[in-house]
């Protein structure tokens, strides 16, 4: 791909190890890339954390109501059916999506060794996205929603803002990609790029208003499962592929495997969606296709797992020193776990027991929390010092964050998986009255509330820490951490030393 008007770098200058540019120039490129993405990235992360807190509160309220059902029932906006929906939408489209936009906006300039093009378009896009989410959530609280799981936000008043805002960020990234100063596109670029193309396509299809009946169900789960796999997972994997090698200082184990992993994901994942409707009034061939595709996912999932593991092997002690690795590596393990779990539960004989139970909730949180959210936490721990040009103020707060959310998600997943299986076994036994299937969940529902409070506490710690870091003393802004090992004087982009 030619870059009009620009002299090409000597071939291979930036892509051959050890024979790169003088350190000063490498540092300069990184600094310029980071400086260019600073504002949009910070807007992404700050707003993402707002939605994380709001979503956490909605989640806690919902969880408590399942074992304290007469809690706060007098107002419509507090009813379980709306709080749960707010929780899901705030976490997916608020927290996760915005944090992912931030990670993408930081990573792509770094990967193409150039500055972010049109950063103001990106920032504007992020603002538009936020407005869309805010409108969508406000309407849900008021009892106005589209009635489709994962797509409840209003299709005319809220959703178009996500498409437009996301599109603005996507255009920024595309233009940045096209102005790249490297010959090779690192695997993370494929994942990020794929995500930004896939998301608007599935979002528009999912929201298309003319579907009704069982078709509406098929389209619903075509969208929702692909939102998980082609949006959340794609950016999550892109981040893992970057941060593990970067912190370790060794390249990913097998680039061939990463190719297989990416195209396998693209090809098979997109056909999985109907496994949410096993047993339902959908043509059998569609469900069979999805089950087959779910099982074929073993190929890309193993490729990715082997790649990550073989890169990490012998170096797991790095998790003691790097919060980024702590979160990202555990997230990578969770990705493998949730994928294997998903393949297993797509099989009809297993699905017979797990469908309609708390197992599904546990499974989804292994994915969106233990995998996606952990990877986003790890990414933010790496990116933020480069945005505000100082280190995280407190190691203790990092540890508190980590242990609170790790214990929270562990309790969450174990409790709901166990009671989900009990519930499922009870549901398929017609001798067991429905009452029993409800009562049998109770210990897990209470444990989940405890877990939820731990998670929320961890989020509060993280947000507090983030706030302290961003608002830190101005004097600290002069020092560039990680860059100043030798007499390189830090320069403003394009300026004098």
């Amino acid at each position, binding site marked *: 791909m030619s870059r009009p008007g620009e002299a090409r770098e000597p071939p291979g200058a930036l892509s051959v190890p050890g024979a790169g540019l003088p350190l000063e120039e490498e540092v300069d490129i990184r600094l310029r890339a980071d400086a260019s993405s600073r504002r949009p990235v910070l807007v992404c992360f700050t707003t993402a954390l707002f939605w994380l807190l709001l979503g956490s509160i909605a989640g806690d309220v919902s969880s408590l109501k*399942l074992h304290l*059902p*007469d809690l706060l*029932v*007098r107002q*419509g906006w507090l*009813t*379980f*059916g709306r709080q749960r*929906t707010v929780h899901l939408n705030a976490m997916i489209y608020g927290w996760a999506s915005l944090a992912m936009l931030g990670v993408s906006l930081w990573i792509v300039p770094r990967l193409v060794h150039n500055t972010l093009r049109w950063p103001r378009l990106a920032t504007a896009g992020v603002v538009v996205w936020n407005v869309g989410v805010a409108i969508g959530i406000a309407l849900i609280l008021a009892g106005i929603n589209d*009635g*489709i*799981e994962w797509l409840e936000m209003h299709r005319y008043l809220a959703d178009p803002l996500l498409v437009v805002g996301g599109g603005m960020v996507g255009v920024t990234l595309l233009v940045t*990609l096209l102005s790249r100063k490297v*010959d*090779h*596109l690192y695997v993370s670029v*494929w994942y990020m*790029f*794929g995500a930004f*193309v*896939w998301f608007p*396509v*599935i979002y528009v*299809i999912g929201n298309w208003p003319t*579907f*009704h*009946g*069982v*078709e*509406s*169900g098929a*389209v*619903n789960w*075509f969208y929702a499962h*692909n939102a998980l796999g082609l949006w959340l997972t794609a950016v999550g994997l892109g981040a893992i592929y970057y941060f593990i090698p970067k912190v370790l200082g060794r390249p990913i184990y097998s680039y061939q495997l990463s190719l297989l992993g990416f*195209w396998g994901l*693209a090809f098979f994942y*997109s*056909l999985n969606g*109907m496994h949410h409707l*096993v*047993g*339902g*009034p*959908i*043509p*059998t061939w*569609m*469900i069979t296709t999805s089950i087959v595709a779910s099982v074929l996912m073993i190929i890309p999932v193993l490729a990715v797992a082997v790649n990550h593991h073989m890169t990490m092997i012998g170096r797991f002690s790095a998790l003691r020193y790097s919060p980024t690795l702590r979160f990202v590596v555990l997230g990578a393990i969770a990705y493998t776990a949730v994928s294997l779990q998903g393949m297993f539960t797509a099989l009809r004989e297993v699905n017979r027991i797990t*469908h*309609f139970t708390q197992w599904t909730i546990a499974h989804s949180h292994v994915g969106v929390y233990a995998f996606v959210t952990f990877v986003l936490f790890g990414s933010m721990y790496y990116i933020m010092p480069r945005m505000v040009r100082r280190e995280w103020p407190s190691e203790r707060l990092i540890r508190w964050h980590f242990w609170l959310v790790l214990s929270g998600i562990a309790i969450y997943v174990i409790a709901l998986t166990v009671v989900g299986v009990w519930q499922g076994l009870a*549901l398929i036994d*017609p001798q067991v*009255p*429905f*009452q029993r*299937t*409800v*009562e049998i969940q109770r210990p897990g529902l209470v444990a989940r509330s405890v877990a939820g409070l731990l998670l929320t506490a961890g989020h509060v710690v993280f947000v507090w820490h983030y706030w302290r870091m961003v608002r830190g003393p101005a004097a600290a802004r002069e020092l560039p951490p990680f860059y100043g090992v030798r007499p390189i004087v830090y320069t403003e982009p394009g300026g004098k030393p």
Partner: protein
Amino acid sequence: MTRVGLLIFGVIATIGFAAIILVGLPRVALFSVTAPPELQPYDPVQQRGRHVYIANGCVYCHSQQIRNAAFTTDVLRGWGDRASVPADYVYDRPHLLGTMRTGPDLINVGVRLPNADWHLIHLYDPRSLVEWSIMPAFPYLFEEKDPEAVGPGDRVVPVRGPRAPAGKVVVATEDALALVEYLLSLRRVYPVPEVESAPGAEGVGPAAGAAGAAAARAPASGPGGRTMP
């Protein structure tokens, strides 16, 4: 990979194929699903009730689909006498198939629980009728009026139990009445011809037909006065 073009092609191609298979083909295949003669479209009150159902998130605890009796025990549990078929849902926009059974399946709740007062009391205070229930209460779908203020057109709800408001009368709002009308309209017990209505449908098979025939001979899922879901 060095070519942005290849990446773009591959990315679009993969989602395009999936959309063709999971959205396009079904569009063609299900185009011919017609409403059975016994199934009426929702009238305006029922449609309003459907919106109330959606607005309050009922779908997050209740499913509306009976699975094939050869596959599992939905039918034996008494939630329906046959598996659900695509034809049952032609008037559903959007679908409310559901993915959780924190509460019972509702596709035939109008058969199991045909009493409007039961539903009104249950919505106001579920635990006054079903003490182990964890369903949310929906008092905001009702008004609590002084006895003198009750008008001739008001639907009074005979609530009871510890959460009944002292000295007040509970009156159903339009939304509550509409929701109950919608719930009562949930009955899909007409027979379906196996082949015509659902070609290859997951829910319909020889066992479902037999179970349906057997259930038709025996009393279906309990008499109308049952209060247990």
